[in-house]
């Protein structure tokens, strides 16, 4: 777990899009994708658990992101793998909006996430 960091300002991330916070920046060593959809922010480990692909480049719809390579879907709220070919969930990270600043808590899973901290 690392200190929370400011990763964006409201308006930086378009609807149904994501930005990637590199692993050396977020302190976990793994890139984290921060998504904005339906007026909420979500953060997941950026790398698909099935194959080498960036979930930030995926298709965001209905609280799910679909991997751009093999179409495995992950729940943005819980990190759960929703369909094959992925079976392993991705880590979630807490996102907080402070005023118009978006703060990421790397390594802090959201409540209800499939993967808990340090799992």
């Amino acid at each position, binding site marked *: 777990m690392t200190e929370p960091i400011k990763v964006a300002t409201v308006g930086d991330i378009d609807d*149904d899009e994501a930005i990637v916070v590199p692993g050396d920046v977020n302190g976990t060593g793994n890139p984290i994708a921060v998504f904005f959809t339906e007026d909420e922010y979500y953060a997941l480990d950026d790398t698909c658990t099935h*194959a080498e692909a960036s979930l930030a*480049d*995926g*298709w965001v719809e209905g609280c799910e992101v*679909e991997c*751009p*390579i*093999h*179409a495995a879907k992950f729940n943005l709220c819980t990190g759960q793998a929703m369909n*094959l*070919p992925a*079976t*392993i969930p991705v880590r979630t990270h807490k996102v907080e909006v402070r005023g118009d600043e978006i703060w990421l808590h790397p390594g802090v899973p959201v409540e209800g996430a499939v993967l808990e901290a340090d799992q």
Partner: protein
Amino acid sequence: MSDAVPARVPESVAIIGGGLAGFTTAQSLRASGYTGTVTIIDPEGTPYDRPPLSKDYLAGKADAEQLGLVPADWYAENAVEVVPHRVDSIDPDSGIVRCADGSRTQAEAIVLALGGRPRMLPVPGGDLPGLHVLRTRADADALRGELAAGRRVCIIGAGLIGAEVASTAVDVGCEVTLIDPVKIPLTAAVGVELANRLHAMHEEHGVQVVEGMTSSITHGEEGYVVTTEDPTAGEFPADVVLVAVGIVPNTELASTAGLDVDNGILVDPAQKTTHPRVWAVGDAARIRTADGILLRRHEHWESAMRSGETAAASILGRDLPRHGAAWMWTDRYGHHVEAIGDMTAGEPVVRTDNGRPSAEFRLDADGTMVGAAAIDPGTTIRAARRIIDRGIVVDQVQLADSSVPLKKLAR
């Protein structure tokens, strides 16, 4: 069986074949809350995923454990028994499944997920020992053991498997010859523009591409020699020969059991065969529509999965899942290729990227999209899926403009 009487949910389901379609049938049954007995019978044992067999697994970048469709404890947790036997026969009327070792099991529902076997070449030497095919993990293991830098690899068939193996073999450092009678393979799958660009990638990566019908394979002290029907084309020596000319669906269990078969086990859109106790899924199943039209077997990953989902719903007497346009992907030389829908229907609209075709869309006369294919598409094909499935009519000028994200047109 009268249509007026709703079918009872069977208390046991025997799934013969543990590929993706068979596995998905079991998984969907359990996901739907089904509590009856579920058995997967396959001589290969625990189900695994096949797409990596011609890609990362063949290249040695993925191991057998990574091929698992689910974590190994899933089967025990979900009470799905995997029986590693070969099935010799089924008796649909009694539900008895006989295995080669003499054991038998009985189930109220039988799902045939038999897949296909590689087609062999009907030419002299087409049955030589040591020729490779690629369908199973064992096939991939055998081929992987032969790929090494400097080895001469002759691949007969430049379809998806042949092209993927060519790419993998080039990556390993092999000298690759790729023979196919078709000048530009895969035009039906991705459209002629992309097929051209994809096929050209072989020569760009040092592969010797030969347009010709293989006429013989011989084996001597210097290894194999492959010839084509064109006597002026020369001979093609090789240390390793892969025959990748498609599959023959495994229909024998079905035909012996009296089910209707025609280049595939005939099923209705609910994956039901002509016997009320038996369903068929995956590559070996072929849909016959209500008006008697035989559809083409769609030998792709997603189709296999969907057919399993449909069969599970049908077995449970539930509403069938609604599936949209069919999707496939392939990879070669570091490029990812996807296609969705029908690339043979309608008229083309082509996008280019630095002068090269990067995507092709097929539009019906009324402007509705019926197919799309793209190289390194990002979310383009996902967007096309939405456009096709929802019948969204998009602006054709914007559609042809690579600078317009398709995602914008799909919303």
